[in-house]
């Protein structure tokens, strides 16, 4: 079902992406380069009361590749992401990072390794953009304020928003807020990034900036699991597309195969509605 061994980067498949349009180039002397690790789930089940949301999900995302999860609303996509970083604990099954089960690890420490970006950004509105990015660095990683500020500046620079460091998130556009949210997650130097419909709440003209930032991350070697309705992004950036319905992965494979020759009637119907 899955193609976890596919290690192509989107640069091999989509020469259209121009990193210079998004990133100003990382500041010299910044943190270590991105180091994505493999992520996998095995037979993951999760129910909320009598509502069985995940019914045995297997997925395999190779290190430094991108997998996009598509599917109708209520199919369990966002829940799956939250099981990967254990914001939700599975009833059954396993979650593996770099080939090792993480269900017995301290969940707070696990989440430092797995960054997450949300549909509604969830920036902290009472703190400046810089403080949003630096909060985890000082309070969790134990950095000094100066070190954290440097790291925050580097990552804000990365997403082209260093000049907004002192403003409150509420004064930024949705696209800018989402890029700050990406910078905040990246500042913790995660090994995997989860994106939960990161562009769904944005005005159409702001979507492209966020997608370009995400594409750049993929190009730099981050392992990414992306829940998205952006079929174009899935097609051009991902090495693997998974189609979920009713808590199961019904179909998965390389994007071209999934979009061009869907095997199940359900995926055919879904694609006919969204494309």
């Amino acid at each position, binding site marked *: 079902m899955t193609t976890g061994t596919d290690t192509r980067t989107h640069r091999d498949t989509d020469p259209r992406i121009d990193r210079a349009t998004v990133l100003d180039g990382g500041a010299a002397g910044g943190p270590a380069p991105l180091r994505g690790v493999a992520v996998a789930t095995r037979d993951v089940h999760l129910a909320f009361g009598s509502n069985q949301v995940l019914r045995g999900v297997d997925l395999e995302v190779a290190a430094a590749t991108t997998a996009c999860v598509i599917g109708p609303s209520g199919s369990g996509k966002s829940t799956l992401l939250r099981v990967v970083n254990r914001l939700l604990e599975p009833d059954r099954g396993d979650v593996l990072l770099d080939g090792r089960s993480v269900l017995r690890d301290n969940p707070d420490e696990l989440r430092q390794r797995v960054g997450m970006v949300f549909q509604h950004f969830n920036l902290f509105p009472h703190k400046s953009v810089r403080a949003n990015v630096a909060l985890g660095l000082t309070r969790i990683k134990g950095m000094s304020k100066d070190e954290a500020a440097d790291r925050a500046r580097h990552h804000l620079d990365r997403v082209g928003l260093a000049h907004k460091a002192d403003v409150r998130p509420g004064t930024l556009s949705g696209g800018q807020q989402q890029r700050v949210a990406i910078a905040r997650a990246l500042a913790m130097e995660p090994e995997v990034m989860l994106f939960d419909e990161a562009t769904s709440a944005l005005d159409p003209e702001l979507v492209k900036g966020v997608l*370009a930032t995400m594409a750049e991350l993929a190009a730099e070697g981050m392992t990414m699991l992306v829940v998205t309705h952006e079929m174009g992004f899935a097609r051009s950036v991902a090495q693997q597309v998974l189609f979920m319905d009713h808590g199961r992965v019904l179909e998965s494979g390389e994007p071209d195969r999934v979009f061009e020759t869907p095997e199940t009637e359900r995926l055919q119907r879904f694609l006919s509605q969204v494309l």
Partner: protein
Amino acid sequence: MDILNTLQETFFDLDAMREALPELLRVGLPNTLILALTSAVIGTVLGMVLAVCGLSHRRGLRWPARVFTDIFRGLPAAVTILLIGVGLSPVGLQIWGPNPYPLGILALSLIASAYIGEIFRSGIQSVDDGQLEAARALGFSRPSGMRLVVIPQGVRRVLPALVNQFIALIKESSLVYFLGLLASQRDLFRIGQDAAANTGNQSALVLAGLFYLLITVPLTHAVNAVDRRLRDGRRADGAARPDDADGELGLADTPLALTQEAR
């Protein structure tokens, strides 16, 4: 005209006011401020504890907080002050002597904490769940996420209600007179009332009332200013059209414009 003169002499006799003024300033005002401020600080700290316990997943914390709040919010303030101030006075006598202030402050603090706890709880609950989720996704534990992210936002939202509660507390501090105060322990109300009882003229009480207004009216306006500022802040957050200084909108020309086919 007689009626007007009578009213003026009864309520606005300047000589009576002048006579009461030094004591109101020297004794009554400091005592009222001591009672109100101390109770406000203790009530706020205790209120935050009640709010956090009230929101806990643990029944052993949630239920006691609930019961405490129901009792001290449901009883008349005078009953609570009398029960604690008089009922516990033998204990107080052994610990700090005949001074009624500690028990009065305790009673006022408990009453205030029940209200302030509910104010904090509503503020904290009004913060979007996504805020705690985002904090936890960064690696914060639930308590840390609450302390650093959720509670500060919740408290800001209820600042106007909190200041209103402080105003109520300043007024309720006058009920401590139930506990029997020495001359040097009297608050604004008691000094005004004593003067009115001794002279049969209400002017000193009116002056005491003016002192209360002098404290509470500026606070009321401060509440309005805070509220206005918070509203303006929300408007700026929600509706201000962001600039496009970084050329974000210009990214429409990037190749990923092709990714809009799903829209």
